């Protein structure tokens, strides 16, 4: 059930994100979408491993796996957002057109 809900959230969230970037005419590059997708994949892996290690009664391992997978996921997500923001800052007319 958790994965169904997460799938719905990701699907709806992805749809909103694409619509929003197009409405704002942000011109997101393909590699920025790829970075975002990798970030989502790592976040999902982090969530699965964290919750499953807790089920296994291994809270220390849960924390380690959350850090091992979650931190790179956050970095990739931040990098994707930064790249879009940085390009928009260089050509502000594009984002407001």
């Amino acid at each position, binding site marked *: 059930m958790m994965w169904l809900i997460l799938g719905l959230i*990701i699907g709806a969230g992805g*749809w909103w994100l*694409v619509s929003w970037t197009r409405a704002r005419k942000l011109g997101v590059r393909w590699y920025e979408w790829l970075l975002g997708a990798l970030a989502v994949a790592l976040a*999902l892996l982090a969530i699965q491993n964290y919750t499953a290690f807790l089920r296994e009664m291994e809270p220390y391992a849960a924390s380690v796996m959350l850090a091992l997978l979650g931190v790179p996921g956050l970095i990739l997500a931040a990098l994707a957002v930064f790249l879009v923001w940085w390009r928009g800052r260089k050509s502000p007319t594009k984002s407001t057109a």
Partner: protein
Amino acid sequence: MSMNLTRRELLKDLGLLGAGITLAPASIVGNTVFDWDNEQTPALSRPSWVRTADKPTMEIDWEKMQRYSEWRTTRGSFVEYVGKERDDRLTKLQTENLDRWLKQNKPGYTLKDRALGVATGQGSGAQGFLPPKDATTPEKLGVPKWTGSPEDAARMVTAAMRHLGAGTIGFVQLDTNTTEKLIYAQDPDKKEMKIADVDLPSEDDKTRVIPKKARWVIAWTIPMSQETMKTAPTVLCQLTTGLTYTLNRSLQLRLQYFLAGLGYLGLGEASTNALGISPAFGTMAGLGEMSRLNRLMTPEWGPITRVFKMVTDLPLAPTKPINAGMFEFCKVCKKCADFCPSKALSFDTEPTWQVRGPWNNPGHKAFFEDSTKCRAYWRQVGTNCGLCFTACPFGTKNHAFFHEFRNALASATPVFDGALKAVDDWINPGPANPELGNPFKDPEAWWRRTDLPIFGINTSSGLSEI
């Protein structure tokens, strides 16, 4: 290049993404979405990454191998190997340590641990080599005995044994020049195990006779509680071993009744670890691979299981050995040897034909252990330790994706074994205070858990859930 998706394309992609996310876990944990190996025994559902093989991953020299006498292990000959003086000293130490830790309320050695330890040994069925005499046989019912193909028999026995409490089940056909050598020459009580051309089995003061027509061995596992095992090396840890033996004594008796009810022989272990070499039969039956522990390592529970066997004249389709990359992983890992407080396990990178002492049986290329060191530590802590089982990266509960990923990757290639072991070191660093008798995990935390599964075992592992 900017992304330019139409709404239709976007919806299609999102649909595919959702389907992928939903199906991905099923493809990893099950064997229904894709099956790596469709030659697995039809009677047993195994993890998808387990591959069958014509030979075990451990090399065997059948010509060199001879039938072994069980009493030559340190279970039966420890005093002979270490001398009476040292044995007496260890006995004194064991008594003193257990008494002191009981009075100190040392976690894992308290009164409640001792009480539960004794309790788990109670209530089992009678254990014997010969089939029960009061079984309701087809002859008594006036009907012919059960007949069917060896494949049908294998499936039927597997279904029955799962219901009786076995974890995984496999079958070995006895061959005079090979697998028959895994039947002990002498049992733990030094009775000679004869294989003779007779119609019925028998037992007297000196011998047990297996009829030559009984050519099949049923080998099975009963998993132990991983969470209880994590309290190694305490009394609390030991009782999961004790409980498994107790459960098996009942299972063995019930299996003997079942086979007799079908019209066939079921020749059991006369006592604990009797009849034949359990890890060897488990390996030949494909229940697992041999490991650095010189014990059986299973895909389902790692080494945290016990292995049992029974000889029968019911023809059964043999199951194949497996290769899940675990023996290869052991070559790199060495974590059990590191954690072994007595340094009894091999640190060699490659297995060897050279045994460490008469407690080992020559004829297989293995990681032989110094069993006297192991047994001496048992005596000091007053239990059967289990720290090596606990340290094993494969002895996990396998809910987390990482475990499935590790298992699949280790099975596919040994290239990443070192990296996988390094990750395991991060997530499973071991006991904070590894002094004599101190446990891997806090036994008092175990006593606060009231939500552990029945017998501490995840019985749905690798199998369908009802």
